[in-house]
C-alpha cells in the first residue's frame, strides 16, 4: 500500500456552507503528519469524515485501504483517536474507562491488562486508577484519553489538539512516547495543534487548511521556502493571514454560528 490515508476531492457542506471544500491529500504509512489551521478551518470536520463519524457530501476517503462509507468496521479497527473534546465516561473509574475501550476493541484479556498498566504508568495515572474520572482535572483526563487511544495499537493515530491544556512535561513525554511508537511499530500519526513549534518539531509533513481548503502542504522547509519565512508560525500567519481574510471570515463565522444554533452540536 502506498498511502495509509488517501483523500480525494473531499467536501462537506452544511446547507450552503462548505466546512470542507474539495480537499485532496495523502499520508504515507509511518509518517507523522500535522494538520494545521485556524479555529473553524475544517480540521475537526475532516477528522470526523476520516474516522467514520460524519458522512461526506462528496469526494472519497481511503484509510488503510478501506472506504469509511462501505466498510466502517475495517476503518474503525485501523485507527485510534484522541478527540478535541473529552470523550471519557465520567461516572466510571480511570481503569474502567481503559478496560471498556480494550473490550470494545477486542484486545485479548491478558494483553489488555498488561497494556493498561503500562500505559497508565506512562501517563502517571496508575495510582489514580480507582478514582472516578469526574474527579480528574482537565490535564489528567487528556492524559487518560491519550493512554486509551493507544491501547489497541492502531495503525493510524488521530490526535485532535491533543496537547491542549497539558503542561510542558506531559506534552514532552507524550510526544516522546508517540515518536517511539511511530518508530518502533510504524504507527502513522495524524495530529492537529495550535502550537506551531510543536508541529515544526514533530511533524514530517504539514498541511495548512483554511476556509475548508488546503492552502499549503509539504515538508517544513518547503513551506518556509514557498512563503519566504523563517519559522512555521510566520509561514502560517502569512498563509492564513490578516487583511483579506478578516472580511471573509466575518461572513463565514456568521454562517457557522447560524449553523450551530440551528443544528445544535452536530
Amino acid at each position: 500500500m502506498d498511502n495509509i490515508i488517501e483523500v480525494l476531492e473531499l467536501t462537506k457542506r452544511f446547507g450552503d456552507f462548505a466546512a470542507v471544500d474539495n480537499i485532496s491529500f495523502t499520508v504515507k504509512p509511518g509518517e507523522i503528519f500535522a494538520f494545521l489551521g485556524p479555529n473553524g478551518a475544517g480540521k475537526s470536520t475532516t477528522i470526523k469524515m476520516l474516522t467514520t463519524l460524519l458522512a461526506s457530501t462528496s469526494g472519497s476517503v481511503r484509510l488503510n485501504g478501506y472506504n469509511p462509507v462501505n466498510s466502517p468496521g475495517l476503518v474503525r479497527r485501523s485507527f485510534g483517536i484522541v478527540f478535541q473534546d473529552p470523550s471519557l465516561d465520567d461516572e466510571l473509574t480511570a481503569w474502567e474507562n481503559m478496560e471498556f475501550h480494550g473490550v470494545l476493541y477486542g484486545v485479548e484479556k491478558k494483553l489488555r491488562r498488561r497494556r493498561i498498566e503500562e500505559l497508565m504508568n506512562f501517563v502517571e495515572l496508575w495510582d489514580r486508577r480507582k478514582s472516578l474520572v469526574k474527579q480528574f482535572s482537565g490535564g489528567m483526563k487528556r492524559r487518560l484519553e491519550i493512554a486509551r487511544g493507544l491501547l489497541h495499537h492502531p495503525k493510524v493515530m488521530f490526535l485532535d489538539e491533543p496537547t491542549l491544556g497539558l503542561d510542558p512535561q506531559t506534552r514532552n513525554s507524550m510526544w516522546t512516547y508517540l515518536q517511539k511508537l511511530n518508530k518502533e511499530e510504524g504507527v502513522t500519526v495524524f495530529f492537529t495543534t495550535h502550537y506551531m513549534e510543536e508541529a515544526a518539531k514533530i511533524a514530517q509533513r504539514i498541511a495548512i487548511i483554511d476556509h475548508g481548503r488546503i492552502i499549503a502542504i509539504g515538508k517544513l522547509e518547503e513551506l518556509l521556502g514557498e512563503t519566504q519565512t523563517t519559522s512555521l508560525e510566520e509561514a502560517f500567519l502569512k498563509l492564513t493571514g490578516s487583511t483579506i481574510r478578516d472580511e471573509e471570515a466575518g461572513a463565514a463565522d456568521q454562517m457557522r454560528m447560524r449553523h450551530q444554533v440551528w443544528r445544535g452540536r452536530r
Partner: protein
Amino acid sequence: MSTIYIMWLRELKRYWRSKSRIVGSLGQPLLFLLALGYGMGSVFQRAGEGNYINFLAPGIVGMSIIFTAVFSGVQVIWDRQFGFLKETMVAPVSRFNIMIGRTLGGATIATLQGVVVFLLALIPGFRPYNWALMLPAVLVMFLVAVLFTALGTAIASVLSDMQGFQLIMNFLVMPLFFLSGALFPLSGLPAALSLVTKFDPLSYGIDALRELLLNQGVFGLGLDTSVLAVVTLIFLAAGSYLFSKIQI
C-alpha cells in the same frame, strides 16, 4: 457478545453509583402510591371496585418502569453531550450490538426499579394473589422495560441536545403513563378514551401485571404479551436503525 456485556455492565455501574438517582426515582412512585392509594381509596371502595392500593400497585410498578426505562434510553443524549458517545461510535464493533447492550442495561435497571417498587408496595398492604406468579410478572416487567428503553434510545438518537428531553417527558412519557390505565380501570371508559388506551403499549404491560398479580386483567394475558412482544420488536428495530445512523 462482549460488546453487549460491557455496555450492559456500564449501565449497571453508572446506575449503582448514582445513589441519588435511585432514591429520587423511588420517591415519585411511592408518593403516587400513598397519596392516591389512601386519598382515593374510599371513593374507589364505595364505587364497588375493591381495594384501591391493590389495584394501584401494578400501575405504579409500571410507572416506575416506564420512567426509568425512557430515562435510560435517553442517556444517549447525555453521552452525546459529554462526548462519550463518540468513543463508542468509532469503536470497531457493530452499532447494533452497542444499542442492544445499552438497551438491555437500561431495561435491567428499570426492571430492578419495578421490583423495588413492588416490594415497597407490600408495606401499605399490597399482596399478590399467588406468589408463584411473581416470576412471570418480573418477565413482563422486563419486556415492558426493554420496550420503553428502546423507544427512549430511538428518540434520543435523533435529538441532538438536552432541550429535547423535557419534550419527551411532557409529550410522551406523561401521556403514556396517564392513558395506560395505571390509575383507573380500563373497563367502562368513555369510547374515545377507551380507544386511546388501546394504542398505549403501557396499557398492555400494566394489564398483564394486574392479570398475574391480582387476577383481574381486561385484555387477557395472551393479547397483552403478544402486543408487548410485537411492539418491543418494532421499537428495537427502529432504535437500532436510528442509533446506527447517528452522526456526530
